[in-house]
Structure formats: structure tokens, C-alpha cells
């Protein structure tokens, strides 16, 4: 029988038939911990900091690995299941590794009407990947996104935090050059 932590402490109540806890290889960095702790001071109930805490880890690592959920949840004072509920609800919290740059193509109604299909097809052809995939060189990940508020200038997309509008199959390829 193994105990939950190195110093062999286990709460009896935790023993209720649970399989022995696995050692936890994942450790949050000091910077991450520090930022999450700071975020927690803003709210009376730590739960309110869930999204920010996930964003902090994503900022440092590019995505939120499985192992991060338990330690983040513990800091916040909720269960990992509840935090995973938040993490998977928001499509911009990445639960898989993404490329250096994330292309988010608007697939909502206005862009649909003004040529979204061609933009999507061009990107897929140029990059050789579909939605949810990352190029082999780890440079781009391609994702759809809901209306980004640029309907008057559609079709539109975002690369990382930059908005690009009035796209055509011609100009969209050139855009990529700015993202090495």
C-alpha cells in the first residue's frame, strides 16, 4: 500500500476503498503558483478564479495539460472534475498542445455568406491540415471560432491575438508569412 505523499501521511477518511493515489509528477511552476495566488485574492470564493487560473497556466505552457488540473483545483479549493468542466466548456482553453500560432477562422453566419468556405479551403490546402489539427512543424493550429464581431468586414479570422479582415483566398496565404 502506498500513501498519498512522500511523508507517508494519509487521511483515514480518504482510505475508503480508494485505489492508492498515483504519484503526481506534474508540478506548477513558482511563477504560475504566484500568479494564481494573486488572482485568488480578488475573489471571496476561489471558484471565481477558475478561468483565470487556467489562462495563467495556458499562458506559460501554451495549453493546459491533464496533470495541471489537480494542482490548480487544489489551489482553488474545488475538485478536478469541476475545474475540468470549466476547462472544457471554453473552446479557447486548450486541452491539447497547439502550434506556435493558432489560426481561428470565423465560421458564423455573416462570414458564411461572404466567402468563408473559400478561406477555409485555402488554409487547409496551404497548411495541409484540417480543423483541430497542427502542422507537422508545430507552426500552426487551425480552429473554427464563433463570430468575432467583424461581420461588416468578413470573412474574418484571428491569428493569435491579431484580427484579420476582408480576406480573400489570395491575401490570406500571404498573411501567414508574418507568423514564423
Amino acid at each position, binding site marked *: *500500500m502506498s*500513501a498519498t505523499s512522500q*511523508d*507517508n*501521511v*494519509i*487521511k*483515514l*477518511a*480518504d*482510505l*475508503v*476503498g*480508494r*485505489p492508492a493515489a498515483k504519484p503526481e509528477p506534474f508540478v506548477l511552476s513558482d511563477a504560475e503558483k504566484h500568479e494564481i495566488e494573486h488572482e485568488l485574492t480578488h475573489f471571496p*470564493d476561489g471558484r471565481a478564479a477558475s478561468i483565470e487560473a487556467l489562462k495563467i497556466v495556458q499562458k506559460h505552457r501554451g495549453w493546459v495539460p*491533464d496533470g495541471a*488540473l489537480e494542482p490548480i483545483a487544489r489551489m482553488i479549493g*474545488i*475538485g*478536478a*472534475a*469541476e475545474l*475540468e*468542466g470549466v476547462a*472544457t*466548456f*471554453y*473552446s479557447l482553453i486548450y486541452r491539447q498542445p497547439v502550434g506556435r500560432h493558432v489560426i481561428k477562422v470565423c465560421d458564423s453566419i455573416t462570414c458564411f455568406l461572404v466567402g468563408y468556405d473559400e478561406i477555409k479551403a485555402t488554409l487547409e490546402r496551404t497548411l495541409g491540415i484540417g480543423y483541430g489539427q497542427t502542422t507537422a512543424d508545430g507552426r500552426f493550429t487551425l480552429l473554427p471560432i464563433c463570430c468575432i464581431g467583424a461581420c461588416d468586414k468578413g470573412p474574418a479570422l484571428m491569428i493569435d491575438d491579431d484580427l484579420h479582415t476582408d480576406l480573400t483566398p489570395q491575401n490570406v496565404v500571404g498573411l501567414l508569412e508574418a507568423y514564423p
Partner: protein
Amino acid sequence: MATIHVDGKQYEVNGAENLLEACLNLGLDIPYFCWHPALGSVGACRQCAVKAFRDENDKQGRIVMSCMTPASNGTFISIDDEEAKQFREAIVEFLMTNHPHDCPVCEEGGHCHLQDMTVMTGHHSRSYRFDKRTHLNQDLGPFIGHEMNRCISCYRCVRYYKDYAGGTDLGVYGAAANVYFGRPEDGTLESEFSGNLTEVCPTGVFTDKTHSERYNRKWDMQYAPSICESCAVGCNLSPGERYGEIRRVENRYHGELNGYFLCDRGRFGYGYTNRKDRPRQPLVAGEVVTRETAIAAATAALKGKKVLGIGSPRASLEANYALRGLVGAEAFHDGHALGDAALVQLALAIVRDGPVRASTISEIEGADAVLVLGEDPTATAPRFALAIRQAARGKGKALAAEKKLAEWQTIALADLLQRDSYPVFIASVDTTRLDDIARATHRAAPEDLARLGYAIAHAIDASAPAVSGLDAATAELAQTIATALASAKRPLVVSGTGAGSPAVLQAAANVAWALKAKNDATGLALSLPEANSFGTALLGGASLEAALTQIESGAVDTLVVLENDLYRRAPQARVEAALARLKHLIVIDHQATPTAARAQVVLPAATVFEGDGTLVNYEGRAQRFFQVFDPTYYDNKIGLTESWRWLADLEARSAWKILDDVTAACAQALPALAGIVAAAPGAAFRIDGLKVAREPHRYSGRTAMRANQSVHEPRQPQDPDTALSFSMEGYNGTGSLDRPPELTPYAWSPGWNSPSAWNKFQQEIGGSLRGGDPGKQLFAAGAGKPYFGEVPAAFAPRGDAYRVLALHLHFGGDELSSRAEPIVKRASPAFVAISRADAVKSGVNGHATLAIDGAQLRLPTYISDTLPAGTIGLPAGFAGVPFFVHGALATVSGG
């Protein structure tokens, strides 16, 4: 009260409910998924749509969700409205676009709320032609199967598991058309109440895994109204049998006790009855013999001999009473473990004679301040624990009332409540599984827990005895708890025999009585060692200690042990020495226990599923359990019968022909038990001349199921003992108001095949059953009782030995359920707990060797940061942990 108008008819309703509940109460069916009587409304599924009108002149109306709309005065709605009907059918059709239509291979089929509702809406053919979304399933442990493709996203599972039961390892992931309900990763569900998911989920996502390997449709099993034997709460069960095996246990609704929910020990612990190693034929000197030979051998061992009888708190009153008849009242011994009998007698005196009667489970749910003294209720009386969680959450209702919000607005209630709750204080020897809802916890040895209790009582009522020499922190805690309890509207004290300490029970009683003097709504709930602890205590036998002393003196020739394993009741060396002094040992039991292995004569007894009888629970409620099936129908070599029948035969008592004769004799002989006859209708009861059918009317294959033995179908077994028939012939309806609630074997009503059918048996939804909740309260209102005054001295650790404390765990400590395979899988291995400082002091690391009550054992250790210094904790009743008496001392060494 409010008047509502439904499809042109006028009805009176109570005005506090939502329209869905109000209509169901009126017997008007509206299909629904996400609403549940115990979970409230969230408006997630849109299935319960009806048309609402502004007034009687409004002909247009608008679609509303009935579960989200109050049934207030002057409401006009239509269920039959064409547009509403189309809307509801469309909703089911939408839900079905992703549902796999796999009813033929789905274990939910035949008792599925989704099937019932789909039929109710009239949706019968699909137009969706595209791919369905699919999910991977998880391994959720030995109890629950997972098949996520069947999910309709009603959110009932997470609302039950997380919000109601306080579980943290089941969640909902994703968004929109892609949501997933499960654990963060594969693994056993941690909650001790996970089994209720199988009934809460309206589809086949969560199903009973223990049933999978021996599966039958609900309509193909035989049922009886039964009682759980895994603790003294006495939850009502509906066990299903086929081919001579119990195949599943489901909840049998009881408005005051279990409600809609059981614990996992009660639901999944039935396997002991199916064990292959059970004695099923009489044995004499280890050889299978006929019934006559066995009785002759036993009679020879009894005749003219000095005989003692040891009864059992896990056997029925009738069985215990029959043993008492055989051996005589003076030679009858209560079968509780050493030390427990006195505790149970004390608990009995507190609950029966004191001014505060035992609270029902629903009363526990209504408490607004709770003190738990000396117990981990999740282990010792699990259903208490689930109820205490509702008490804590109950503050949401009070906050809602202030804001004029209805109680069923669950989301609004949770938003109001956030992390607030009614106060729950837990004082126990070590951590408990309720600590997550505790306002404050306190860990101490039993004496010190008692001292805390005495101090709380004194702080509430100065005439209760005071405690001297309390340290400042404990005194302050006592004051805090006293203030919270005294200012509550419905304060509750929970305690019991779990700490093995009379002082703890007395202190708990003092707190309750001090509160009662100020507040009539004070509650008290005491957990007891076993299912029929109060029943055996009321029979008034002498203690096991007395029996052993007599046997040890050599004055006893023959010992008759009824459904009891003495090795679980006294230290092994003592049991062995005592048994060696006997000339004859007769054991009547349904399990192959070490005690039975020592017997010359073993008479195979019926389990709770194979016989009938009466149990008395922690409230003093006498409840009858009924035989589910007749094992001899499938195998005529089986020679087991109810223990009382063996005992009546040994005594050649021809007057006891049926159970009612024994129950009546017992009630007559013991005034305290006079009420037990009324616990359920007797064998002569009929509805319109019919017995009540144990089998659903669709039961199939009856003529074929014995064909492997003989193609001639024998007559169905007859049941002289009860008003139930072993057949689908008999009364099967729900409509008759003459149907006593004690005689409902399973939940079914036309169009309602799932556990939701219980709604058709209730006076009002989620309330009492029609005809009153089952059982007969044996205790009259108690009188005033003087406070207990023996405040114990504080616990002082000894230098040379450790005080052994019993640690109770939900799985593995209860005798019968821990003989069931899935429970064994779920239980942790035996261990010894020791405080950090003591571990260092005694050089314990990893393993410890203990000497206790003359036994030596080596166990893995757990270092506890909360266990009091000078004590060690051992899991009570565990395989690999020998019996120890309360307060035993142990020496501990490392390695």
C-alpha cells in the same frame, strides 16, 4: 392553496409547487427528464412543455416549461394542446438524434424513463439520417457501468452526485452538442452513494454493474418488499431474483427513511446470499444429512442438557424469539459483541425513555444545525450522512424564502447559497467523510468527546452537569457549538455506539435534552451496531459476556448459536476456549462462518431474501421483510428454511405454522413488542380476494425455467407466511387505495416502468406513501429523564500501551455485505492508524506489530495527523483485524 385550470378543468393545489409537480400530484401525466422530486427544477431538457394562457379568454397561449412555472392561483394551462404536444414530441425526437436506439442490448431497457417518456409523447419513427455523436466510456469501478452514448444531457447525474451527495469526482465536460458526464479520468467513483446514479439517470448511461453478469429485464424478475440489513437505518429495498439468485437491489421508496436513495453498501452488498459456499443442506459432524436426521441429532444434544442460546442482532425478531422459546428466557443471550450490548441498551433507554425521540431521515434533512458526536455516519449509518448533507444545504431554502423564491428553483438556491450552509459540527476520533461540510471539526479520544458533549449541554442548560478542567480551546468550541444549536430552529444531535463509549452516548443525550427543554423541535439520531440491534435489545437477553462466563465455568452442555459468528463478537482465544468446554454446538446460520465450522450440527438458515421476519430500526420502527423467492423451487436438494422454523421444529412446537403465529406470540409475550404485528398486514390479507403478485404481469419463461431438470412444470411455490404470491398471478395494480404500502414489491404503474413509478404510490410527490410510510413505531412519546451525570475524566495517554479505537469504514466492516464480491473489491486492506508523534516514538514505519487482547498481528500503518496521541485506530470488523473490545490496550512495535 391555489386553484389552477388544466385543459378546462379546475383543480386545487398547494400553490408552492411548480406546474409539473402539481400536475403529477393530480395524476395528470406530463413527460419530463431533468426534473426530479429530490433534485428540483433546472429547465434543461424542455420536455415538460405545456401551453399557458393569460386567463380563460386567452385562446393563443404560449409554450412554457411546466417544471419552471409556479402553480400559482389562477393559472390556466393545457397539456393536451396540439402545439404543446407537437413541441414535446419534437423534443424527444431531438434527444433521440444522438441516442443510439440500442434498447435491445441496453440494460436500462424495460425500466427506462426515456423509453416511458418517448412512448408517452407518441414519438415512434425517426427522420434523422446522419451520424450520431459517439463517446468513449470510462471504467467507474466495480459498481457502475458507463455508456455515454445514451446520454440525453439532462444533468441529473451531476446534480445528484455533486450537489446532493457532495461527490467531487463526477463532472460535466464540454459544451453545446458535445457534453460528457463522467470522471476526470477512469477510476472508481469515490462517493459511498454512487449507486443512486443508476436510478437517477433516466437512461442507460449509468447501470448496475453487479447486475450485468447475471442480467434480467425488470419484468422477468421476482421481487418482495425487503429491508436492508447492512445497518440499523433499515432502508427499504426492492431486490429482484431469477433462477434462485438475487440479481439486483433497487431502492424501495419510503417517505420518512430512505426516500429515493440508498447507500452503496446496501445496494451492492447482496452477494452474500448468492455465495456458493453457504450451508444449504443440514450438516451433522460435517456430513450432509436429511432434515429429520439433523433435527434428531440436535434434539439429542438438547434433551435433558444444560442449554444456552446466543441470538443475533442480524436475525429477525421471530428467529430470536423462537430461540428464546427453545432455551428459555434466562438462557437466552443477546448476540451483540462484548461491550456492545450495554451500549445498545443505553441507546435504547435514551431513545425510548428520554424526552427526545429518534428523528426520521427526512427530519434529519430538515435540521438547521447539527452536532455529530463520536461517529462517522457515512460508515455507521450511511443514510444519516446523506441526510446531514441536505440539512447543511437546507439554508438555501431559507434564503430563497426570504427572497420569495420557490424551493424547487435549485439553480437560484445554489446561487444564493454559494458556499454558505447551516452549521454542522463534527467531533470524532479521526477524520470523517462529512468533514467537507463541517463548520468545525474536533478530534479526540472518546472520553474527551464526551467531555465536549457534556460541556455543550451545560452551556445550553446550566442545570446540566458541568465539566471541570476543560482546556480553553475546547471550552470555547463547546460554547460556539452550544450557541449555534441553541439559536437554531430545528437543532439535531447525531451520535451512536460507533465510538464504543457509553459516556459519548450520555453526553449526546444531555445535549439533546438540554436543547429540548428550550426547543420542542430538537432532533436526535443514534446509530447502532446492526440492523436489528434494538429488536434483540427489546427481547432482553443477557449479554455475551454472561454466556461466555457460564460456558467457561463448564456449566453448559449445549450451545445454540443463531445467525451469529462468535469470532466477530469476542477475542478468538476466548471463543476457542469456551467452545472447547461445550459438549455440543448447534449453529443455525446462512453463512459458512468459523463458528459454523466448529459446530456438530449446522442447520442452514434463510437470508433476509429467502425468509420473512421483523426488524426494529434505530427509531424503534418495526419493519417486516418478505421472502423474495423460494430456493427449493430450483433445487429440491436445498434444505434451508427460516431460522424460526428450525427452532420451532427443534422444540416440536406445532402451534407455530406460519410467521404470523410467531410474530403474534412474540408480541403477546413481550409488551414492548406488542406493536410488531401491525408492522405489515398478515398472511390472510387480500385485495379483492387476491394476494399481491411478486412477479410483474409480463414475467416470461416460467414454464421453461426448470426444464433442465424436468419438462413437467411443477406447481408454483406456495407462500403460507405472507399475503404475497410467488407468481405473476395476483394483485398488480397501483390504483387501489387498499394496497398497504408495506406490500409493494417493486415500482410499476401503467406507462411507468422506471423507478419514477414511485411517484404513483405517493400521497404527494416526494412525500409519504399512500396509506402511510411502512413500519410501526414501537416507542410511545418518552418522558423527561434526569441528565446523565458521570462526566468522565479526560483521556490520559499511557506510556506503555496504546488505547485501541474502532475506526468505522463504509466498506468492509459490515459482516454480511463484506461477503459480497463487489464490496470486497471496493474495501481497502486492513491497516493500523497511528499519530505522527507516536509513530516516531514507537519506531513504526510502514508496518507495525501489535499485541492486543492476547492476539498478535502485523499490519501496514497509516500515519494520521488527527488521531489523538496515545491511541491507535483499527478498522472495525475488517477481514485481517481480529475482534477487540472497546477500550482495549495494545502494545506497538515497528517492523
